């Protein structure tokens, strides 16, 4: 066990933690700054942490035996910090109009980003678990942040209870895996499991099943999805966006790394189990979404459907599917944030969030209506947009791994999803608005929206650079796997 730790490797996380404390203090001692500017300040901190993590591009370093800092970590750090900064900018107006205590609000968002970074960086179960809980606790608190809103409290309560329940199950799974393999290091677990496992089978399978169950809760896979629609509907809208982008991406960053490094030797035992979960998740998410009336709830079920597609990538796990999965995750995060930006803007203008309230949006705010249309088409997987390209690459990679039937099911449900997205688009373009006045233009939010939409088109039309980044990133986790099995490698200490 190494005794000298390179603390500098965690500089982005230190920066985020310090910045969170700084935001709280500013809020406390300089109330004159204003709730909006506080949000912009938090966004600067998150963006700076994202920039700082670029120092380690191409590096392969380890923080003790706890975490590694390599391209995989860097990619996700930048993604998570970007999500955090975007959410801070988008919540500025919302917080100003509707919430108390802005300092803690932004600080908790930054803490959630630290948790997410830790989940992507960890290569050891304890670190991963603590990071997971940091992320989850921040989100529980933020979900219930609208203190006098009954729905917000109820959502927080449900999210918290089911989250705690699932982490207990997840922990029991970790316990059994620790007991059977004697280690909490992903790589060592992988090593033990690739050897003779006949005398530890029982505990090993129990542990694996419990871990899949616990993680299934965290990423909201059917049948562990029950809290998702409630948490999404009750939470303040920027937090809904945060849960759907950050929590999901972090969950899958961890899921992918754990299964690629630790449980890959057992792939024949769990791949059909995960494939079953994927089919159930896609089916339920997409079919129940059809009858939703509330925009947030619709996006909650649509995000459950998206989890189904992501699980396809886990079920057909290989290096190619892993990079396709990371690409789809990035595309999904960007698209979903774009969709939520439109919904936040509309809520800020009108305070409404039912689908029928979007009637005639095209007349009152044509640009927002257009962007929401693009984002929804991308989520449905229409050509030209990110959703199509990333899904295509993902399903193709899955088909190469003899999971053609699963890719077929996924393509079918992605076609079903078009129906409920079109309902929203019809309301916006065909419906007549009750008032004809244009909404005022908030330039900062429009700029953020334009950047996100540009990202949707970039990934949709020219995915090569992003895919290469994803390939570099996943190469590092599969390298450590080969290293453990004794193949010689160049350039790895």
């Amino acid at each position, binding site marked *: 066990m190494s005794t000298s730790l390179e603390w500098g490797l965690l500089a982005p996380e230190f920066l985020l933690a310090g910045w969170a404390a700084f935001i709280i203090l500013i809020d406390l001692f300089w109330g004159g700054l204003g709730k909006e500017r506080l949000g912009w300040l938090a966004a600067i901190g998150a963006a700076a942490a994202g920039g700082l993590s670029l120092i380690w591009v191409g590096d392969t370093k380890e923080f003790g035996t706890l975490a590694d800092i390599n391209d995989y970590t860097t990619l996700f750090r930048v993604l998570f910090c970007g999500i955090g900064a975007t959410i801070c900018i988008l919540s500025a107006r919302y917080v100003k109009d509707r919430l108390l205590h802005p300092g803690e609000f932004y600080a908790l968002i930054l803490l959630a980003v630290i948790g997410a970074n830790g989940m992507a960086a960890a290569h050891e179960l304890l670190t991963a678990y603590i990071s997971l*809980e940091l992320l989850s606790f921040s989100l*529980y608190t933020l979900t219930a942040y609208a203190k006098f809103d009954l729905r917000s409290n109820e959502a927080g309560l449900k999210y918290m209870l089911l989250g705690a329940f699932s982490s207990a199950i997840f922990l029991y799974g970790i316990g059994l895996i620790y007991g059977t393999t004697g280690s909490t290091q992903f790589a060592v677990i992988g090593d033990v499991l690739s050897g003779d496992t006949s005398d530890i089978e029982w505990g090993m399978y129990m542990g694996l099943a419990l871990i899949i169950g616990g993680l299934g809760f965290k990423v909201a896979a059917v049948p562990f999805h029950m809290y998702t629609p409630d948490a999404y509907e009750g939470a303040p809208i920027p937090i809904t966006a945060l849960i759907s982008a950050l929590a999901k991406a972090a969950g899958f960053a961890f899921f992918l790394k754990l299964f690629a490094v630790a449980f890959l030797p057992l792939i024949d035992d769990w791949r059909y189990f995960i494939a079953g979960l994927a089919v159930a998740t896609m089916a339920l998410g997409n079919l129940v979404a059809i009858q939703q009336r509330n925009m947030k709830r619709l996006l909650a079920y649509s995000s459950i459907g998206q989890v189904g597609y992501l699980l396809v990538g886990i079920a057909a796990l290989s290096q190619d599917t892993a990079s396709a999965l990371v690409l789809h995750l990035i595309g999904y995060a960007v698209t979903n944030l774009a969709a939520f930006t439109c919904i936040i803007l509309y809520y800020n203008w009108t305070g409404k969030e039912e689908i029928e309230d979007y009637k005639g949006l095209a007349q009152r705010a044509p640009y927002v209506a257009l962007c929401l249309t693009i984002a929804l088409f991308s989520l449905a997987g229409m050509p030209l947009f990110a959703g199509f390209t990333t899904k295509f690459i993902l399903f193709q990679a899955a088909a190469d791994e003899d999971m053609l039937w699963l890719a077929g099911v996924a393509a079918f449900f992605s076609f079903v999803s078009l129906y409920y997205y079109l309902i929203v688009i019809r309301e916006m373009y065909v419906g007549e608005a009750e008032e004809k006045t244009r909404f005022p233009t908030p330039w900062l939010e429009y700029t953020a929206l334009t950047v996100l939409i540009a990202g949707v088109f970039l990934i949709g039309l020219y995915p090569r650079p992003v895919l290469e980044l994803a390939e570099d990133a996943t190469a590092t986790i599969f390298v450590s796997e080969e290293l453990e099995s004794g193949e010689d490698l160049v350039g790895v200490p």
Partner: protein
Amino acid sequence: MDSVDLEHFLVIGAILFGIGLYMSLAKRNFVGVLIGIELMFNGVNLTFISFSRFVESAEPLNGHIFVIFVITVAAAEAAVALALAVLLYRLRDTINVDQIDLLKW
């Protein structure tokens, strides 16, 4: 009598976990559910401790360290959950999870 070995501890841990699981699913009172979850955590802790005592491992202390962190996390969990319970009780005069049902489908 035989000596007490790993299986006994694991069975006790599993029983604790099972009781907690049952409680958190069957209780209708928020605090009851929370106690069930804490019991599940304690079952896990017992499992960890007994594994790190009995199983040969390169890192025998990891189980102990894990338990310390789990205890800490469980305390933080209780703090967040009880704060929510107080908030809900003030607004709604109930912490029965069946009656907290504004959000569905």
